[in-house]
Each structure stands twice: as structure tokens, then as C-alpha cells.
């Protein structure tokens, strides 16, 4: 459960690959209920992250901070500040602990603070809120990730671009929840991280 420079690098590499492979799908999810750019924005961000991590950071805090700054300055949409804040809060927390569960707790608080969303608002908070406790309990599985992402489908959006659609936002998976799902999947697939 300890985050190291090596596991962080592998985790981000896997996350970046998933975003790259699914950028069209993520943007397609974003088309009916958003501005259709989530996948491309995230892919631009993760390409910048990979570039930053190609020279090995001195410690976990530096690594997390570099990831945050790369996302904040390249993503452009709402996901830049949201993912950026998540990694920035993890960076801050990492000066006192490198326990992944605690870092993710700090990240979730940061996302909630930045976006002002609550569980049930059909945002990435829904996925993080369900899965962070699973990480802490050592019970995260692929199925739980899928279930958390799919659960956003029937929600009515209260935050973000989809909220302008009101009831019509129902029936679509929230794109930020889907990309967050990939982040947790990448966590599962990173040896020695969980």
C-alpha cells in the first residue's frame, strides 16, 4: 500500500495507456452530455505527464507535484483542475505518509473542494467516493470499478457541463467517472501498489 517513485511511474504509465487507447470512447461519452473533448484533453495531459516522468523524480512528493502541474497546465477542461488538484493534494499529504489509501483520501477531499460536487451529482466524485474505501480495505476489484462507473449512468447531473441538460443527462455514463475508473484499474494492474 506504499506509493514509491517506481510504482507511481508504472501506475501513471498504465493510466496514460488506458487514456490513450480510449480517448475516442471518452470523448464520445462526453459528446451527448458535455463538450466532447474529455478523452482528447486527458490524453494531452497524460502525454505531458509521461514526458515529465521520463526523467525519474527524486521522491514521491516531487513526482506527484510534477504530475499535478502537467495536468493543470495542459488539460484545459474541467478535468485539468480536478485531476491536478487530486495529485497536488496527494503531493502535500505525501510529506507525512506514502500510504496510498491516505493519499487517495486527501485527493478525494481536494476534488470535492475544487469542484464542489457531492456523491450522487454524476461526477468523478461518485467513483472516487465508492472506490477509495475499497482501496483502504484492500478489497478493490475490477467488478467494483465497473459497477461504480456504470452507476453514474442513471444519475441526473448536478455539476459540470452535463448539469445544463438536467433530466436529459440521464442514461449516459459520466466521462470523468469513466476516466477515473481507468485510474483505479491502472492501480489494480500495478504490481506492488495495492
Amino acid at each position, binding site marked *: 500500500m506504499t506509493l514509491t517513485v517506481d510504482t507511481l511511474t508504472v501506475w501513471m504509465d498504465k493510466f496514460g495507456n488506458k487514456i490513450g487507447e480510449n480517448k475516442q470512447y471518452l470523448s464520445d461519452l462526453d459528446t451527448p452530455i458535455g463538450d466532447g*473533448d474529455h478523452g482528447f484533453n486527458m490524453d494531452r495531459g497524460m502525454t505531458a505527464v509521461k514526458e515529465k516522468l521520463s526523467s525519474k523524480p527524486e521522491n514521491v512528493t516531487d513526482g506527484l507535484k510534477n504530475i499535478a502541474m502537467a495536468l493543470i*497546465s495542459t*488539460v484545459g477542461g474541467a478535468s485539468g483542475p480536478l485531476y491536478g488538484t487530486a495529485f497536488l493534494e496527494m503531493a502535500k499529504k505525501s510529506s507525512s505518509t506514502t500510504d496510498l489509501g491516505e493519499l487517495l483520501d486527501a485527493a478525494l477531499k481536494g476534488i470535492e473542494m*475544487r469542484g464542489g460536487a457531492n456523491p450522487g451529482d454524476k461526477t468523478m466524485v461518485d467513483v472516487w467516493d465508492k472506490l477509495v474505501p475499497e482501496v483502504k480495505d484492500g478489497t478493490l476489484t475490477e467488478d467494483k470499478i465497473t459497477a461504480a462507473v456504470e452507476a453514474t449512468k442513471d444519475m441526473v447531473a448536478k455539476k*459540470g457541463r452535463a448539469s445544463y441538460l438536467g433530466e436529459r443527462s440521464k442514461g449516459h455514463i459520466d466521462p470523468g467517472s469513466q476516466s477515473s475508473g481507468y485510474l483505479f484499474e491502472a492501480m489494480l494492474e500495478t504490481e506492488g501498489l495495492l
Partner: protein
Amino acid sequence: MSYGLTIVSHVPEIAEGLPKLLKQVAKDVPMTTAGGTNDGEIGTSMEKIMKAFEDNAANEILAFYDLGSAKMNLEMAMEMSTKKVHLYDTALIEGVYTAASLLQAGVGLDEVEAQLKPLTIKD
């Protein structure tokens, strides 16, 4: 004049266009803008917003934005800026136009904020 305006929009042309309207009623109010991403695409940029704060001749800024994610970048820029920045959740054009007119007339911040209140449409 001690107060200035900063306008943040997802679209560079929206951000650059608004001062044309505002200058008609507020030629002496310092205004700076941050429109689009660093690549000039649709979106907002924390760096551009920081620069708009710094470039503004005023040392206290009233900031206005168009849609949600602009607010997030604005808030991050505010946390990093050394200037005092007030953020308003008003309808963009009506809000910034109201503030510009009142600042030009030399009205104090309290009065400006009282007039902005009914224009609030975002939470």
C-alpha cells in the same frame, strides 16, 4: 483607481471582445482577460489567468467567468496570486458590465457587490 477587472472565458474572442463593450462605460477601469487554453483552444488556463492578474494595473481585482471549469482555474490562480481577487458567480456580461460602470463612477466595493448580488446565477 484601485480596482480592476479580469474576464475569463473558454473562448479567446469572448474574453477579448467584452472589453470593447466595457470601455464604452469604463474607459479608466483597468481590465485584463484570459481566454482559451495555452494553445488558444476552447478552455481556460490557470497560467493565463495568473498573467491577467499580474498584468492588471490595479492591485485589487474583480474577476468574472463564463462556465464552471473557468471558475476552478480561477480559484487555483487566486490561491497562488499575491493580489487580492474577488470572484463573482454572476451572468458574465451583465455582471462585468455592472461592475465596470460602477467602478468608473467611483462607487465603493460594498455597493458594487450589492448590485452584483441579484445577477448571481451560478453556485
